[in-house]
């Protein structure tokens, strides 16, 4: 029991949770609005899309890469889906948009995967390239425009609510979207895959040391390829959810989100060098960033400060884990030297 406790206290997630709790209390004290039912539902609502993206970004980070193409990938996949369905006058349910977005997302993800699994170039540089290819296809080749009337199935899905939370004082109401269940489902599936399948353990293994993973019998190329396919699928789902919830297709709405999502995952304790990290941490990191973004207005800080706050958050968050890592390494090598001299 005691070791279990000390393990919890030492975990990165614990500190993150502590930061979130303290931050919420501060916001509550300053505004009196944080712990109201509708604000909490608003935060859950705002977390769906970044949360979904974070699952994908987390998986790539664990494998030792950095993917910056997922917003462009999601935009292109959903733009194609919406355009085709609107032109065809599709009036049916949400299943077809989902299938189409997932299919396109998988293809685009496979494109990333082919490059990432075969070229010894940092994934960051590859995905910088594919990201601009994706947005170039969307904006140049397809000449993307805003689509105000999305298929009925999609807007129904976007409006579907689990329950409505009401603020007794201000009378404001907030809807809990059905898509929150989708986030939970994706997180659950990713958790099971990462923890209990060979594929999932392989992702951790090749993030730790690629040649060691290869020696241990993991097919590194295949794992990488399917990893990016999976990330493409998750990103496309996130894009579809965002479009449905906005009730219109805004092609460039998602672009530029990659930094915030990666920051969230890294804040959650995932090592940028790969191999370690937990989904819980990634979700807590996302929650922290969503809270910061949503609550600046509550506390009365102008939205101008958002970029600045995000930058500070990234640097401080990654700085803390970097300092921890250096300290641990130093301790380890000191112990080794002592053992050697004894």
């Amino acid at each position, binding site marked *: 029991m005691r070791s279990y406790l000390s393990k919890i206290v030492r975990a990165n997630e614990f500190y993150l949770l502590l930061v979130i709790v303290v931050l919420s209390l501060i916001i509550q004290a300053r505004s009196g609005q944080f712990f109201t039912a509708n604000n909490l539902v608003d935060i859950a609502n705002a977390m769906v899309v970044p949360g979904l993206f974070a699952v994908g970004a987390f998986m790539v980070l664990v494998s030792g890469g*950095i993917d910056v193409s997922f917003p462009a990938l999601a935009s292109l996949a959903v733009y194609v889906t919406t355009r085709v369905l609107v032109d065809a006058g599709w009036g049916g349910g949400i299943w077809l948009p989902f299938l189409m977005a997932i299919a396109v997302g998988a293809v685009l993800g496979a494109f990333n995967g082919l*490059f*990432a*699994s*075969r*070229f*010894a*170039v*940092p994934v*960051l*540089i*590859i995905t*910088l*390239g*594919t*990201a*601009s*290819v*994706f*947005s*170039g*296809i969307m*904006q*140049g*080749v397809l*000449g993307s425009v805003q689509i105000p009337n999305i298929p009925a199935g999609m807007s129904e899905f976007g409006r579907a609510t689990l329950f409505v939370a009401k603020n007794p004082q201000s009378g404001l109401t907030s809807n809990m979207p059905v898509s929150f269940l989708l986030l939970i489902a994706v997180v659950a599936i990713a958790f099971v895959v990462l923890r209990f399948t060979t594929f999932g353990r392989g992702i951790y293994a090749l993030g730790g040391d*690629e*040649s060691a993973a*290869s020696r241990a019998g993991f*097919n*590194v*190329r*295949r794992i*990488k390829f399917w990893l990016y396919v999976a990330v493409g699928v998750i990103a496309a789902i996130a894009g579809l959810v965002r479009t449905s919830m906005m009730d219109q297709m805004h092609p460039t709405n998602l672009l530029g989100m990659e*930094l915030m999502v*990666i*920051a969230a995952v*890294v804040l959650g304790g995932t090592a*940028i*060098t790969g191999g370690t990290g937990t989904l819980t941490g990634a979700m807590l990191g996302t929650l922290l960033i969503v809270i910061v973004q949503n609550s600046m207005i509550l506390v009365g800080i102008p939205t*101008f*400060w*958002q*970029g*600045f*706050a*995000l*930058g*500070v958050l*990234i*640097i401080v968050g*990654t*700085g803390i884990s*970097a*300092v921890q*890592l*250096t300290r641990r390494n130093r301790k380890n090598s000191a112990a080794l030297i002592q053992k050697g001299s004894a």
Partner: protein
Amino acid sequence: MLQKVTSLNPRLGLFRDQHVVRLAAILALLLIFFAIVKPKNFFGLATWQSMAIQFPEFGLMALGVMLAMVIGGIDLSVVGIANMTAIGSALLMLQIAPVGSDASTGYLALAAAIGLSLVIGALAGALNGILVAKVRIPAILVTLGTFELFTGIAVIVSGGKPTSGLPPQYAEVMASRLFGVIPMPLIIFIIGAVLVGLLMYKSAFGTKLYMLGSNETAAQFSGLKTTSLIIRTYMISGVLASLAGLVMLANYNSAKADYGSTYTLLAVLIVVLGGVNPNGGSGRLSGVILAVVVLQVLSSLLNTFPNISNFYRPLIWGGVLLLVIVVNQWGKNNNLARLFRWKGNAS
């Protein structure tokens, strides 16, 4: 493998470097194509002058990214630094010489602005360097974070609006032409490139950069002060980015926090295209400068086709980057079949 060993020595003859030769060939083909397809534009001085005004913006940034990449890092914050310094200098100039003040105040404002921007650039770079070298955060994360930070500062300082109404002396100096032909931005770029070249190939600092980039631990054990080297490298990158900011300020005649948002990718693309190893330790200045010119010629060529939308540009940039990655790999293995196999590592 052989190629890697030879490219480790940065002082080998220029034309023995496959990469530089390949780029020069691409440039020659591109120029011939340009001359055949659009002779009117190709043989007009105006085309070349507008190119010379444009490419220093991202060319200077690419020089900074190159230095960072040679030591095994990367600098993604250059656009943030450029915009932050542009806004800072613009505000300072407005402060010293408000609209309607006389010429001498205008020149004073100009000098102060240049001084301030160099200081801001160096400080911003030093922050990057300290975070990379002292706190030991990976360079990608540091510069992603400081990009947000610097852009955030730019937004706060400017209120998110474009800052304009600069003293006319600024535009006058920046639009002036040496011998009536060579535009000021090109001169700034040439000075920057020459200084970087001297630093890389004629000073001990340059040799140390390559050593640091090929093996940091070995460099440390051979007595290099890696911390100070890293910090100085990012400071140079910051100063180059701030010069780019001054050029952008002149070209747009205003400053805004989100100008040049595509330049991050473009700078990385140029450096990789120029043959710098993304993992550090090799790459040469001539390759990067050739890559800058190739991309600018490509871009100007596209501009002469009015029916091709500007949105095609990212597609072409990204496509070229991926193509370069593929071609580089090709040269390394001489064996395409290996790429299609399912077994093995990313080679």
